[in-house]
């Protein structure tokens, strides 16, 4: 739920809760943050489900299944964040410039997005190496998982900060 916390902090810092007539804008920020939460949970489910199905069938995890699922989940999450979530700012009423919101947000999230892509690449490489010999790909798997955790968290936080800045412009 940290996207909601970030949004509360941003709004508190900007006086968004007290400013007259800002209720709609605050609602829009929370709608976006809610969208971030939902998209993150959906991404986790998209990665977890195939891994779980494989485990129930084979009795063991298969890193390549999870890594491949991550590619799809990350792609969908990026698309949802870029194309869909900025539209939620319309919930604040008026005529928001969604294009500008999207543009500013992208400037904030492009590096974490690249970090996420590199981390998933590491996970894919590690998974492939594990196929050949147990243990051979585990350094890559550990580095990829650490990078993914960090970059994904940054991606979510900065998408909120960036879209917030774009919306206010």
């Amino acid at each position, binding site marked *: 739920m940290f996207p909601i916390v970030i949004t509360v902090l941003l709004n508190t810092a900007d006086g968004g809760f007290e400013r007259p007539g800002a209720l709609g804008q605050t609602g829009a920020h929370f709608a976006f943050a809610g969208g971030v939460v939902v998209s993150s949970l959906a991404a986790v489910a998209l990665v977890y489900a195939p891994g779980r199905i494989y*485990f129930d069938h*084979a*009795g*063991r*995890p298969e*890193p390549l299944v*999870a890594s491949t699922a991550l590619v799809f989940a990350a792609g969908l999450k990026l698309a949802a964040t870029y194309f869909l979530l900025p539209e939620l700012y319309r919930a604040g009423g008026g005529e928001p410039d969604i294009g500008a919101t999207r543009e500013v947000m992208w400037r904030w999230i492009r590096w974490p997005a690249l970090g996420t892509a590199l981390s998933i690449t590491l996970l894919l490489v590690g998974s492939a190496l*594990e196929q050949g*010999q*147990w*243990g051979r*790909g*585990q*350094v890559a*798997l*550990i580095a990829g*998982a650490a990078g993914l955790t960090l970059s994904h968290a940054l991606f979510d936080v900065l998408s909120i900060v960036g879209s917030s800045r774009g919306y206010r412009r």
Partner: protein
Amino acid sequence: MSLTRREVSIALASAALVRCGGRLVNPSPKEFPLGVASADPSPGGALLWTRYDGGEALRAVVWPDGSDTAVEVPATGRWALAEITGLTPATWYRFAFVAGDKRSSEGRFRTAPAPGTSPIVRLGATSCCKAGHPFDVLLRAGERTDLDAFLMLGDTVYADGAGSLDEYRAAWEDPLSTAEHQQLRASTALIATWDDHEVDNGWGGDNVTPEQLAAARQAFFEHMPQRTPNGAQVLWRSVRFGDTAEVFAVDSRSERDEAAGEYLSRAQMSWLKDGLAASPARFKLVMTSVPIAEYAVPLFAPFKDDRWEGFPASRAEILKHVEDEGIGGVLWVAGDFHLACSGRVSLSGPGQSAREILVGPAAQLPNLSPSYPAGPQFEWSSGLNNYAELELDPLRPSIRARWLDGRGRAIKELELAV
């Protein structure tokens, strides 16, 4: 135990009461809340156990499966033990405890084959039974009628957080009250060791207080019957099944000396080395709650200090001893990892010709590693809840191992050349 004609007559009458009705119709779970168990079978008997909550004199009645001829022995204590001897080797027996007009449920055990004989021996094995997880595996294993004994590799209960004797007893009582535990414990003789969770999570020798360890040890011995040929409340011992197999139960936890780098005490190490070298059995199974195999990969490295690998001198000493003495037929059997697997103990160095299998978890989450042991060192692994069945046929060059899940379905079958 030799019996007079009068003793046999009395015992026969008791057994008839127990089995055929009269005043003793149904088991009394109030007086015997944890069922019954047997343990450490010998050619002439076994150790019999129950928890008795009554006040009358207690005795165990034992009769051959399918026969009316019975014998009885006195049992003592609230966590009551009775040692029955003088029975026929390699024979199935039933037993129950009787006190006044109350009786326990029935259990069964098979006496071990006599030395000099080499019948096929079948053993079950599992580890890690955490309350709150389904106990289906225990139920399926307890439905078996063909297992000569069942090896409990530790973490039979999770007593984490307990400190006093009463708390440890409660940690045992809750799971042992379940039908699944009681069915397994009544179905055949147990051969048990412990792991960390019988004391505390991550316990490994000196990181609990002596008082806490004493309480945990007492509760363990109260609930897991076993012979103590090497001293009071000393876990390590062996159980022999004729010339077919000898099971060495190792205490992998309480005798560690981290400062000296010793995983087992010198006394235990000497006992294990001498026992393996002297055993005439075709197969020697070493029950070590924590694996001895090398898991030299980054995902398993952080926990290295908790297992044999963290004590390289002890590990090398026992593995080199087996190799140098040319001791054949050794299979290491372990639990703890929440995964089942089979493989070589090492890829190179000491243990490269040795084999280890992991059994269980019976009722636990699977190992959380995203990648499980595989080739070239390991041939198979699984995180499904399971118990293993080992068929030890001295006429065959290998041990047939099967892992079965909570539905009784075989999830893997392997021939283990040892």
